[in-house]
Each structure stands twice: as C-alpha cells, then as structure tokens.
C-alpha cells in the first residue's frame, strides 16, 4: 500500500460583526468608538442609494444610457472606501459608486460616464484611480501592476481591486492573484460576491465552496466576510490594507452580498431568479441594519434621517440638473486624447468630423 500523508491543509475564516438587525455579534473593533466615522459611512451609503435610484429612473425616462445599479452593495462599497488611504489606488468593476464617492468622485462624473460622455472618467480628486472596467476581470492585472510599481519604489501604499463573482472565472483574475502572491505585492482584492453574474448564479460559476479559497492556490491569505456589514468590511479590508502597506503582501477578501437589482437597466432578472430569493436577500440589505446599529449606539435620530434624505435628494437633483445641462462634447473629443501628440491621420480626420458635425453626417 502506498504511503499517504497530508501535505497541506487550508481553511477559510468567515467574519462578521453585525447581525441582520444591526446588533453587535460580539466585541467590536476599537475604531467603532469613532461615532463620526460611522455616521459618515452611513451617510455615504444613503447618498449612494439615493443616487442609484435616481440613475435608474433617468435611464427609464431616456435621459441616461444603460446603468448598472448598486442596490444592496452599499456596505461593501463604502466599507472598502472607508478603509483605504487617500494615496492607495482603486481599481473597480462598474458598480462601485459608493467607493468612488467616498474617494471624492463627483456624482456628475458617474452620470456623464453612463450618459455616454468620456468626461465622466476625469475624477478630479483621485487622479490615480482607474475608471470603471467593463471587460470582466481585466482590471486585476492593472492592480497587480500598480502594486508592483509601489513595491519597486518602496512606497508605503497599496492597490485595492474589486472583482465580481463572475470575474473570478476569468484567467486574468488568477494570473493577477498568482503574481501578487508570489511577489508579495501590496494588493488587496475584494471579490464582491453578489451571487449573480447576469443570469448565472455562483453555483453555476464554480464548484468551490467559497470564492475566497481561490486565493489559496495563489498562496495568498483569504477571508470571507459579510459584505452587508459595513463594520466588518472596513475592519477586514483595513487590516489587509495595513498589511499590504507595510510589506506583508496581498489578501483576497470575499464580501458576501446580493444584487437586489437587475444586472443593468437592460436586464430583467425575473427571467432567471425567484421573487422569494430576492425577498429573502432584501431582509439582509445593508442600509437599514446600519441605521439600527447607529441608533442603538445613540448616533442617529429620526430627525437626522429626514434631514439626510432631503440633503441627498437635493444633492442628486443638483447633479442631475448639471448633467442634463452639460452640452455634449464636440467631435474633437474623439480625437484629442488618442495620443499625446496627434498623428497626421488624426488631425485630418478631426477636420473631416468637424465638417460633418456642422452639416450633419
């Protein structure tokens, strides 16, 4: 009989601080004593949801292009933003407006992008962050590359990359976390597992019990968290960021949440999932539980809730007004950013496009 021994064993921890009602499950991290920070995080979640609701309505009334709602992802998105340092660099998919807003991206930018205008990628306050990444998983090597640059220069910074559950099926995801593992790159990868890649559930995407465990093969620490719990999100992502920034290498964090909306406004999720499943997920959504948590700590009042909703609505309406009043770019905008110096063909075609813009094409 052959000799057999176990040469490696792995386990994936699951972490959460709050239950579905927003009650603490145990001892909370010390930073939770910073009530103002908790309030800021909550306000940002509500701001993201208010914007999101409006954006869907704008699309429905023909004033915005296809839009991917972030409904239900607010704790995961804001929690990551709140864990990052300003000099870290963010790589997202296309849904993480809560993270972008936290880092200072304007509401108008997001409206312009989904409104078919490249000026929505300008991000005045986060000049190193990448724009949304539509080709699934392809942002992951960029984040690894940014992390490698930070490592080469000996900087105390890190790259933070989002990827979705579907994105973990792409080769680029494995390539990036493998490289991050072998080079101990300052990379924090947050897999937002919202259970659905358009119509394909995670169970049809992988036979793995968790998405976090995909990191085991890359030799990278991995953890699964309740992504609807903003406390655990900020805490675990924050721990990973501090480790990455101090030379401790990468971490892969799987944040469990649920896409309460259609994939985008072009999708109809009722074709492929049950109302019961969505209703059950809705009971776990992050905003109400966060409000309960704040209220239980004496950090939030009904009056503040009313004021916040009004303030968010006013801010969103102002951004929408600005968006709708933004004239479209001239046709020069197609040409002016292709190269640092325009080629002769670019210059000639720019003239041609101007001519047809004037007379109709």
């Amino acid at each position, binding site marked *: 009989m052959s000799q057999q021994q176990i040469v490696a064993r792995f386990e994936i921890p699951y972490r959460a601080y709050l239950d579905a009602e927003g009650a603490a499950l145990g001892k909370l991290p010390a930073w939770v004593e910073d009530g103002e920070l908790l309030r800021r995080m909550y306000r940002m979640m509500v701001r993201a949801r208010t914007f999101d609701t409006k954006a869907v309505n704008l699309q429905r009334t023909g004033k915005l*292009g*296809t839009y991917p709602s972030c409904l239900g992802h607010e704790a995961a998105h804001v929690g990551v933003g709140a864990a990052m340092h300003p000099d870290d660099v963010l790589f997202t998919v*296309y849904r993480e407006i809560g993270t972008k807003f936290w880092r200072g991206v304007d509401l108008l930018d997001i409206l312009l*992008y*989904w*409104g*078919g*205008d*490249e000026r929505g990628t300008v991000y005045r306050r986060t000049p190193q962050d990448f724009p*949304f990444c*539509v*080709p*699934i*998983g*392809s942002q992951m090597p960029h984040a690894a590359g940014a992390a490698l640059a930070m490592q080469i220069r000996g900087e105390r910074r890190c790259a933070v990359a989002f990827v979705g559950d*579907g*994105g973990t*099926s*792409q*080769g*680029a995801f494995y390539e990036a976390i493998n490289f991050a593992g072998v080079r101990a790159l300052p990379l924090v990868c947050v897999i937002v597992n919202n259970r659905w*890649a*358009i*119509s*394909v559930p995670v169970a*049809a*995407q*992988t036979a793995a019990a968790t998405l976090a465990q995909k990191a085991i093969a890359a030799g990278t620490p991995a953890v699964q968290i309740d992504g609807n719990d903003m406390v655990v999100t900020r805490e675990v992502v924050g721990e990973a960021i501090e480790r990455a920034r101090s030379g401790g290498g990468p971490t892969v964090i799987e944040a469990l949440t649920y896409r309460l909306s259609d994939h*985008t406004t*072009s*999708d109809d999720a009722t*074709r*492929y999932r049950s109302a019961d499943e969505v209703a059950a997920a809705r009971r776990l959504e992050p905003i109400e539980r966060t409000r309960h948590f704040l209220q239980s700590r004496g950090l939030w009042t009904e009056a503040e809730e009313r004021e916040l909703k009004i303030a968010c609505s006013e801010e969103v309406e102002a951004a929408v007004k600005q968006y709708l009043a933004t004239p*479209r*770019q001239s*046709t020069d*905008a*197609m*040409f002016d950013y*292709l190269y640092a110096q325009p080629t002769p*063909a*670019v210059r000639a*075609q720019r003239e*041609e*496009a101007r001519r*047809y*813009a004037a*007379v*109709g*094409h």
Partner: protein
Amino acid sequence: MAKMTMVEAINMAHAWEMAHDPSVVVLGEDVGTNGGVFRATVGLQQRFGKARVQDTPLAEGLIAGTAIGMAAQGLKPVAEIQFMGFIYPALDQIASHMARLRNRTRGRLSCPVVLRMPHGGGIHAPEHHSESLEALLCHHPGLRVVCPSSPARAYGLLLAAIRDPDPVMFLEPVRLYRFARQEVADDGQALPIGCCFVLREGTDVTIVTWGAMTVDSLKAAEQLAADGVSCEVIDAGTLAPIDFDTILDSVVKTGRLLIVHEAPRTCGLGAEIAATVTEQALYDLLSPIRRVAGYDTVMPLYRLEHDYIPGVARIADAIRATLAE
C-alpha cells in the same frame, strides 16, 4: 411564412439545426435560462435541454477554447461571445488554435465551430459594447467571417456557418437585430458562404459594404437616384473569404468603387478590397477607389457614436466625389 426580426431569425436557425443535427451544441454566457442578452437563444434550453444549451462561466477564453475541444470530438459548437468587444480574451484561442488546428494536424483534427457575436454600435450601449473588429478576424488564415444584413440572410448564413467544416466567425449587427421584420421561411435552406449579395443594381458606381452599413448605403443610393445617379449596392455578406468575382464584375460595369464600413479606416477591410480591385481591375476604373469608414479612433461613448459611424451624408458625398473625378 412568418415576418420576423433578425434576432428571431437567428433563433430559428439555431432551432432548425439543433432539431436536425444532434451534434449541434450551444454555449456561452447567459445563453440558457436567460436566452442570451439579446434573446438570440431564447427557448433553446427549454426545448433541447441543458446538455445541448450550456451556460458557461464568465470567461471568453474558456468559451472559445472549449469549443475547440468539443469540435475536435465531433460536436458542432455554436458559441456566443456576448459582445464583440469582449472577444479579446478569446483571441488567443481563436488565432493560436481554432484557425490552425486543421493545418497543424494535416487535416486530422478540425474545428467546425461557430462563434456568434453582436457587432458594431448605434444602440447607445456602454463602453466596449459597440466594437467593429472584423479586420482582426479576417487577418487570420483559417477563419471564415460572415456578417448578415437582413433576417433572411442571417437565417440562411447561420445555417451555412453551422454546417461549415471550418471555424466561422458570425458577426451580428446589433443595429439590425430588431431593425426590420421580413418574411423568413423556416425551411432549413442555407445561403452560400463566400458570396456577395447584390442589394441594388446600378451602372454608375459600385458600393461594397456589409452589416448595418448596408442600410445607410442603400439610403444614400436612393438619395442619389433622385439626381440621376445609378448606384449598385453590394452586401459583401462574407468578409473572409470575400467574393471578388461579384465585386470585380460590378466594378468592370460601373468603373467606380466606394467601400463603406463602420470599423476604423486604417487597416480596415476596405483597404484589402481596394488593393485587390486595384490589382485586378485598375484599367477598368474611371476614378480612384474611395473608402467611407469609421474614424481611426476608439469607438466613442454613445453621445458621439453617430458622429463616429458613417452616415448617409458621408456616403453620398463620397459617391458624388467619385463621380466628379
């Protein structure tokens, strides 16, 4: 006969061939339960089962690569790439393997695969959803590239693509998916790959185009007809290999050639057509060959997409310029 859209005709061609050839298997992202994001495969999984209509993980390289293995095992995979802009992870498999397997194995193994993908812009889609990348595919020997421009041609050409013994890239113009309804007979009759379709006969100038640009080219031809200009409009239909016999016959007749495509001008397929016509019919030409194409830019986000995509005015101007020379 039922009147139907192009996307419905594509669905019907799938169903016909799956019903008549048990080796046909459909795979791709969201093609099963959801029936595809454009509904091209709607109802197929219910009718033919989960083994023959497979929702894959979200990985285009996987889709193209597994189609190769399936085909070499005697299946006929019809795979969907959700949008042409997402083909890049699959290009390694397409270029390095799908296009070459027959040649590498001296004919022992082959890839009767169809890769279907929405092509082009014009529907206000997000970034990366409006690409016209046919030249990338036509440049790889071993591939056939097909681009239908009507429901009936989509039906007949998709049947031909599935029955073809070699890999066929099947480009479906998104602007035409639900553009017009046409009677399409569900008779299992394929149309020939490698043949142009003459959409309008004329004597003064030949316009070669394909996909959604056939619509604008026909409109321009109609407009010019009012001025007494007779345009012959040819839908290339198959982009690799191109039916040069039909194009050359037309050019010999008209003496003038305009090529219209949505993809960027530089190294676009128009250059190949112009070069071949120059080589074979230079002395029949009465004026230089002209191209109307997308600009050499990234496909802009949708607010400017109609400034990018050639329209009737650009085509009509080019026809007039050709005739003035």
